[in-house]
């Protein structure tokens, strides 16, 4: 299965390395060469430097055959733009975007983009740990 990860920060690079080790075909895109270095020499996939939603870059990453596109850049607008292009132009079956700023949640919803909201998840996990303790 082909998966494209856009954004190679801490989350993107970790995800890329783990999925590649698990045997998936991974392509990672980031506009900063430095961030791609985080993948190290052991990364068994494609690392592409370029504008994250550029037509040619996406094609180079093999978007026409991708089953998943994962958007994990720190810029919500970049995640939305790339998600819309992957979903509506290249018809990728599943597109999942990370929400950086929880107040932007409704924008993703209006534009019908599937999301992961780390702030909400972490806050929920911390709360459940606290609530597990006797008051």
């Amino acid at each position, binding site marked *: 299965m082909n998966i494209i990860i856009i954004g190679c920060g801490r989350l993107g690079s970790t995800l890329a390395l783990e999925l590649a080790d698990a045997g998936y075909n991974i392509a990672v895109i980031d506009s900063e060469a430095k961030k791609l270095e985080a993948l190290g020499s052991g990364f068994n996939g494609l690392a592409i430097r370029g504008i994250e939603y550029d037509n040619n870059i996406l094609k180079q990453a093999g978007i026409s055959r991708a089953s998943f596109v994962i958007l994990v850049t720190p810029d919500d607008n970049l995640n939305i733009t790339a998600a819309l292009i992957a979903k509506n*132009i290249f018809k990728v079956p599943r597109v999942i975007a990370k929400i950086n700023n929880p107040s932007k949640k409704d924008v993703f919803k209006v*534009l019908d983009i599937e999301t992961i909201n780390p702030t909400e998840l972490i806050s929920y996990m911390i709360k459940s740990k606290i609530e597990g303790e006797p008051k």
Partner: protein
Amino acid sequence: MKSIIIGGGKIGFNLLKTLKDRGYNVTLIEIDEETCKAIAEDIDSDIICGDGTSLDVLKDAGINDADIIAAVTGKDEENLVICQIAKKGFNIGKSIARINNPKNIPMFKALGVDQTVCSTEVIADLIEYEFDRDICKIVQTFDRGAMILVEVAVKDGNRWINQYVKDLSLPSECVIVSILRDEKALFVRGDTQIRNGDNIHIITNRATVPEIKKQLHSGGAQNAKQKK
């Protein structure tokens, strides 16, 4: 008519000024507080300091009863997101996006942004226009050059002077629509004679313009001459 401008850079600022001068109801959204203050000192208008890609800020700006949205920030992805929100979230009739990188134009169009303005392209067109201005100038471009309206100023040395329109051997993809002579419009027929000083308006496409220029300088009138 109510319009909202997002982005208070040079383009947003001047757009606000122009629309205000013309009496439109305009609200500007800009994220940088200093920039907002500077604009507020210059122009008496509604200015909102906030993120133009946030639903709450757009609602504050009155997007629910806006007719036109112009997204003119320096970031293409921001402009796209704003236009998408306006369309899908608020059903705005018209959204205009500034595009900084011409490569993004087809993608924006495919995603349904009504109108895109690419400064790079506009400037390239202007330069081209300045180069061509002695012979043909492009008055209006439709659909990125698929159809253009060209104005030809006839002057000394042009081969079209004193020719009848029916005698010109024009390329097939062009139509002469009118002639401006002494500030009056002439509606061209075959027996209209072209005179020195005429401004001829021609509907054609980008690809045919060089051909028309060539005709003006040499070929166009030759047929007529042979007949004489």
